[in-house]
């Protein structure tokens, strides 16, 4: 029982990353009708925003310590971060410790900017082009972005820890008299994603801007005829989608050390999530994200693997095939989307 609860928890936590990425992907698809293969790269760029903030905060000056030697036998250069010298070791250390949450503040404008440039500079010209062209150009962009990151940050994963205060484990089962310990940061990630998802939904639901965008998603032409500049709003939505992916990336860094190809690792999966949820359906993307996360977690249980060896390798795809064959438009998709 504990084991099952733990896996459900785990699935929700995995699913929150899937849902966040799929949400952005669906927003872009639903509003702009563009199949964005560079969306994984946006997630990756978000993660590297965190890495960059961490590096900036740890920028150090060097002092030569004659008592210690470096690997060549020369006197060791001891590095002290500037923030520690400015704010004192304690305060400075705390600032560096909180690099990832701090990075959120930086990531939002950066990601919106990246999204804006991407949309205005490239994607805009591809609205009327076939999906195949969109795939090719965004795929090319994804490669370029990840190679640029690789050029500056290398290919190895870079550790980006969570703040000390949030890095332990919590006994989430204690309330129910059970012993279920779970990493605090993963719980934070889950709630963070719930907040973001809730935020996006209420933004679309309760603001005029959101209403226009939703109307535009349903019928772009008509909204255009009303004299509303829907393109402009869509550009902003692209920026928001990029920010969602970026924030998902920022917060993900303590869970797994980011590397330059993490976007590609998530790309196929996030497309499966979007399609299982139903192209163009935001609730579908979220639902499918959590669903696939939970199923993936269950499939990795020993009890299940011993009956179906290798099931954890293919579960996502098995689910995708079953859903697409039984519910042709995904869980919550509309008819006629992307079927041409």
């Amino acid at each position, binding site marked *: 029982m504990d084991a099952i609860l733990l896996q459900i928890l785990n699935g929700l936590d995995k699913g929150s990353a899937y849902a966040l990425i799929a949400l952005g992907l669906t927003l872009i698809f639903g509003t702009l009708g563009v199949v964005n293969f560079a969306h994984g790269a946006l997630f990756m760029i978000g993660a590297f925003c965190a890495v960059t903030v961490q590096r900036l905060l740890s920028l150090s000056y060097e002092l030569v310590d004659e008592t210690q030697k470096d690997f060549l036998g020369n006197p060791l250069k001891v590095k002290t971060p500037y923030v520690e010298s400015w704010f004192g070791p304690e305060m400075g250390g705390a600032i560096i410790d909180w690099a990832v949450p701090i990075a959120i503040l930086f990531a939002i404008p950066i990601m919106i900017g990246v999204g804006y440039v991407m949309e205005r500079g490239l994607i805009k010209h591809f609205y009327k082009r076939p999906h*195949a*062209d969109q795939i090719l150009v965004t795929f*090319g962009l994804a*490669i370029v972005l990840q190679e640029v990151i690789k050029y500056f940050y290398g290919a190895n994963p870079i550790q980006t820890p969570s703040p000390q205060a949030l890095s332990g484990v919590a006994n989430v089962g204690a309330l129910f008299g059970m012993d279920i310990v779970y990493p605090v940061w993963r719980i934070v990630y889950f709630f963070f994603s719930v907040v973001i998802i809730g935020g996006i939904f209420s933004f679309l639901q309760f603001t005029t801007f959101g209403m226009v965008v939703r109307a535009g998603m349903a019928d772009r032409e008509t909204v255009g005829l009303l004299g509303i500049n829907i393109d402009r709003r869509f550009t902003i939505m692209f920026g928001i989608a990029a920010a969602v992916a970026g924030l998902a990336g920022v917060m993900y860094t303590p869970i797994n050390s980011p590397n330059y190809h993490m976007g590609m690792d998530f790309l196929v999966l996030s497309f499966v999530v979007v*399609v299982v949820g139903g192209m163009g359906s935001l609730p579908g993307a979220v639902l499918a994200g959590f669903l696939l996360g939970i199923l993936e977690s269950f499939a990795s249980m020993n009890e299940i693997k011993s009956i179906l060896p*290798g099931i954890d390798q293919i579960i996502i795809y098995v689910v995708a095939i079953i859903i697409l064959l039984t519910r042709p438009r995904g869980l919550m998709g509309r008819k006629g989307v992307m079927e041409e």
Partner: protein
Amino acid sequence: MFGLDNKDTRMLLVVAVLTLCAPFILNPFPTDSAMAQFNAGYPDLMQRFVIFGIFAVGFNILFGLTGYLSFGHAAFLGVGSYSAVWMFKLLSMNVVPAILLSVVISGLFALVIGFVSLRRSGIYFSILTLAFAQMSFNLAYSVLTPITNGETGLQLTLDDPRILGVSATADGSIPVTSLFGLEMRSTFEMVVGPWAFQFNAGYYLCALILLAAFYLSIRIFRSPFGMMLRAVKSNQQRMNYTGLNTKPYTLAAFVISGMYAGLAGGLMASMDPLAGAERMQWTASGEVVLMTILGGAGTLIGPVLGAGFIKYFENIFSKINDNVLHSWFSFMPDGIEDFVVFIIHPFIGKGWHLTLGILFMLVVVFLPGGLVEGGQRIAKWAKKRKGKDSATPGKTTPAE
């Protein structure tokens, strides 16, 4: 000629000349010159050009004609390779049964996957094919290791129970693949002054098969069947209300292109008897999509150009390193030389992905019809210029 109209015949002949003379065409630079780095006329790469050409030509029959974008075609290539290597292990080192088996098995595999996946269209179809291919890859890499030898790839060993043939040669090595005794790896080298040209038996087998495959694809494009496939892409509704059942058409196209992929896989294994699981990964499927679109989807020769383009970058650009750069620019003053090398450095060697990514984007942005469109534009421009220079009409471009 060959039941083709003039234009198609001309194109076939151009392809034939290009492939048969590839050892010359791809080795334009003297062996000792600095530019020799750009020579691509060695057996392995030439084989890859034509094999991926076959793969892309087959993919184009599905994607170019029907518009169904399969993201799992590499699975058929992989299955073809595995079949061929098993044939080498169990039956004989002759490539003919291996290639035949790989075509048949991948055809059957395509039939099953196509039957299921073609129940959906659009991106749903793409995801279904992707899912099947990724399942094949993941399983081949792990639990199916007894059949596929997982990570390492299926290889020949010294104790293969080969029914028609020996497990090991007299001198204790693994026998090599051959076509009725003609070893696939045997190479004839011709040295002309500073140039060296390599003529490899395996390459010529691949080239001839490419020509056959290309010819067949022209016939399919020009046949009523091909027309029906284009009609499927254009308007399925009208097809249905014109008394045509689209499903067998698309399924036939899917199976044919799957067999092309299997043929490519079988040839790959025949040239180099190893079948790696990575051949089935989604990135490999993505590669053939890129080749086709980059070259020009729906055009006859586009996929072959696209395949050559990508493989050239992969194999030539990845091998350029800083040393090579320095040797090219050594004529410059030191400071400038270093600067030039510094500027180019990110784009070569380990940066070949970056270069390829940029080129994808440039091609898609500026040449929506792929490289073929680029060729046509150049031809048009040349025609115009020529028209200015003289009254004689310019030669028509072969790059349709």
